[in-house]
């Protein structure tokens, strides 16, 4: 029987120009790593086709321990308060090696 451990998965869909800032937030909270995917779509910021830098989105993913969730999300919320168009959602997730996500 495999042993799963509960963690939180933070997803942020934002313009590609915000990638560095999101990585900065992840690093500031001593998380152990992150994943960035290119993304396309549409929303309050209009059409994001991915063909031009100003219209290209990313999906930024970060797995953290529940104890860290609030502090990381507070920083992401600051970006939203500044007016950045981004969508963020958190989901429960299960991992096999929790130590991989705790630095």
């Amino acid at each position, binding site marked *: 029987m495999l042993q799963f451990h509960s963690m939180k998965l933070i997803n942020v869909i934002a*313009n*590609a*120009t*915000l990638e560095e800032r999101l990585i900065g937030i992840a690093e500031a909270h001593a998380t152990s790593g992150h994943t960035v995917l*290119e993304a*396309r779509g549409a929303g*309050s*910021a*209009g*059409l994001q*086709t*991915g*063909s*031009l*830098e*100003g*219209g*290209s989105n990313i999906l930024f993913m970060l797995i953290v321990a529940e104890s860290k969730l609030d502090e990381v999300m507070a920083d992401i919320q*600051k*970006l939203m*308060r*500044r*007016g*950045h*168009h981004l969508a963020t959602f958190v989901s429960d997730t299960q991992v096999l090696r929790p130590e991989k996500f705790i630095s």
Partner: protein
Amino acid sequence: MDVSNLLIPAVLFFALGFLAQGIKSDLKFPPELAKALSIYLLLGIGLKGGIELSHAQLGEAMQAVTAALVLGFGLPLIAYAILLGGRLDKLNASAIAAHYGSVSAGTFLTAIAYLSAQNIEYESYPVIMLAIMESPAIIVGLLLARFSRGWQDTGQENARENRMGELLRDAFTNGSVILLFGGMLIGFIVKPDALATITPFFGTLFMGALSLFLLEMGMEAGKRIGEFRRVGWFLVAFGVLMPLIGGAAGLLVGHYWLGFGVGGVMLVAVLGASASYIAVPPAMRLAIPEANPSYYLTLSLGVTFPFNVILGIPLYHYLAARLAGV
């Protein structure tokens, strides 16, 4: 105006992309291709400018640089005033104004293709002006936004967006600026013999690559038509009016101030008329996050770019010829 002048590959490829989108074709470009092509085109145009600059007159070049700065700093202010007159909020007006003071290399290159197809000579200085005009409007946009947020409100939420030093660095280290100026510097300092090795790639293939880029941009422009309702008809009308104002300013500067011939005057008009959709949108994304990207991308790419490529370029050519009395 002779409409048959529009039958050049660059314009037709653009129209093809637009049409493909209109008839809902499943034609798709890999998204990275447009970005790769824009890097190639900006470097290529920078190189060409640098080569020209290496045998240019310093005095004339300085005049062109000054004129480019005047247009780059002045046009966004006019755009901002019109947008505020239309009751747009200040932050969206600042972001859109920055796009209209800056330039579109895609439009400029289409204009060059248009002139080359008709064997019309043009001065080399507008290429330098293109590189110069990338940044000033970004700075004006940043200042307008800073002004709109209020000078007192510096410590709070918008701390980063209000830090001018950082924002100015962003304006000058913008990818497009690095490619244009970097290409220009390399074209300027490298000896012609040494440049010959890269000429097939950046010279002979250039217009073919431009055609591919315009095909993709035609599709991108077509996709934005659906956004017209969201941005509202005032802004769509602005997207046609502003290039006419900028084009008129460019015609006057090119003819009366710089004393260029028909081709050169037309190119300065195109610089004044075009709106950026490569360099400025990401800069505004970071500097004026409160503005709606749907507004400025729809306007510069969906309205002004097609207008300039299809109607603007032949119109500016016609007017430049009238000014010159040809």
